[in-house]
């Protein structure tokens, strides 16, 4: 039913979760298309994933240099036009640096890199990437970051909460000092989602703590079928 849905996965210098993201797309039933940071166009894909990793070595600020990569120019235009885009971890940082999402991600408040299986609650199921979850559903997926503290001014945080744009919140512990326990947010239209934890690492029982992450990828594929 999702045959022929093509989801691009961008590889920047220093990306490291691009392979897992592509694998998650295939397991969800889509076709993964490798996009290169130097590409001038998006090869006609139906959605794009910006994967985790350390693009450009996290130099300057996480995601700051990737934001000016050639592929980002058509991507920003397409995202503003409604193309579903998911930024995971470093991808979330790139989306914030690109101003496709508000706020920024800063050094974890405890200064340590953190790697753990993290419980999060899906707060919004109206985005392109979370429609297959139940509202309020709690899931466990891996989290691994050094600069995962989500910050924005109070007015922006109030607006995100008021508009239902907080996509996921940390449950149990707040692992990185994110304001209001925010683990993921969306743009106003709901096609662009940034998420700090890694759903692509929780798509099969052999390698993941759960398969809870798979629904991010089936959501976008289902959305394309219905569109």
């Amino acid at each position, binding site marked *: 039913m999702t045959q022929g849905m093509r989801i691009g996965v961008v590889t920047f210098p220093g990306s490291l979760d691009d392979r897992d993201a592509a694998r998650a797309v295939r397991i969800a039933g889509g076709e993964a298309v490798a996009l290169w940071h130097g590409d001038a166009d998006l090869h006609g894909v139906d959605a794009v994933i910006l994967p985790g990793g350390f693009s450009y070595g996290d130099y*300057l600020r996480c995601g700051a240099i990737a934001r000016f990569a050639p592929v980002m120019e058509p991507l920003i235009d397409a995202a503003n036009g409604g193309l579903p885009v998911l930024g995971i971890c470093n991808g979330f940082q790139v989306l914030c640096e690109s101003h496709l999402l*508000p706020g920024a991600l800063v*050094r974890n408040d405890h*200064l340590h890199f953190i790697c753990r299986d993290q419980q999060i609650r899906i707060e919004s199921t109206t985005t392109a990437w979370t429609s297959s979850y139940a509202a309020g559903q709690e899931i466990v997926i891996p989290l691994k970051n050094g600069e995962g503290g989500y*910050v924005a001014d109070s007015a922006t945080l109030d607006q995100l909460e008021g508009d239902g744009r907080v996509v996921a919140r940390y449950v149990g512990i707040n692992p990185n000092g994110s304001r209001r326990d925010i683990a993921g947010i969306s743009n106003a239209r709901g096609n662009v989602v940034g998420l700090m934890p890694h759903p692509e690492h929780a798509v099969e029982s052999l390698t993941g703590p759960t398969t809870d992450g798979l629904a991010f990828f089936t959501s976008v594929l289902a959305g394309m079928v219905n569109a």
Partner: protein
Amino acid sequence: MARVVIDVMLKPEILDPQGKAVEGALSRLGLAAVTSVRQGKTFTLELAGDVDDTTLAQLHTLAATLLSNPVIEDYVIREVTA
């Protein structure tokens, strides 16, 4: 030839855990009089030619888009020397 020095600092309301860590180390070294440390970045740019108004405007654009993230940071063009 001109040299331009640009400082970038986290906004005062943004927690600076690195500065906090340095602050803790300083007090352990006996510098009890230090009450706060904030850590920032300095960029030194060497330019061919002089810095005219057009170049200065471009430098501000560069500082506000690439060198700093205005959501969390402030920048200041501290020094322009010919």
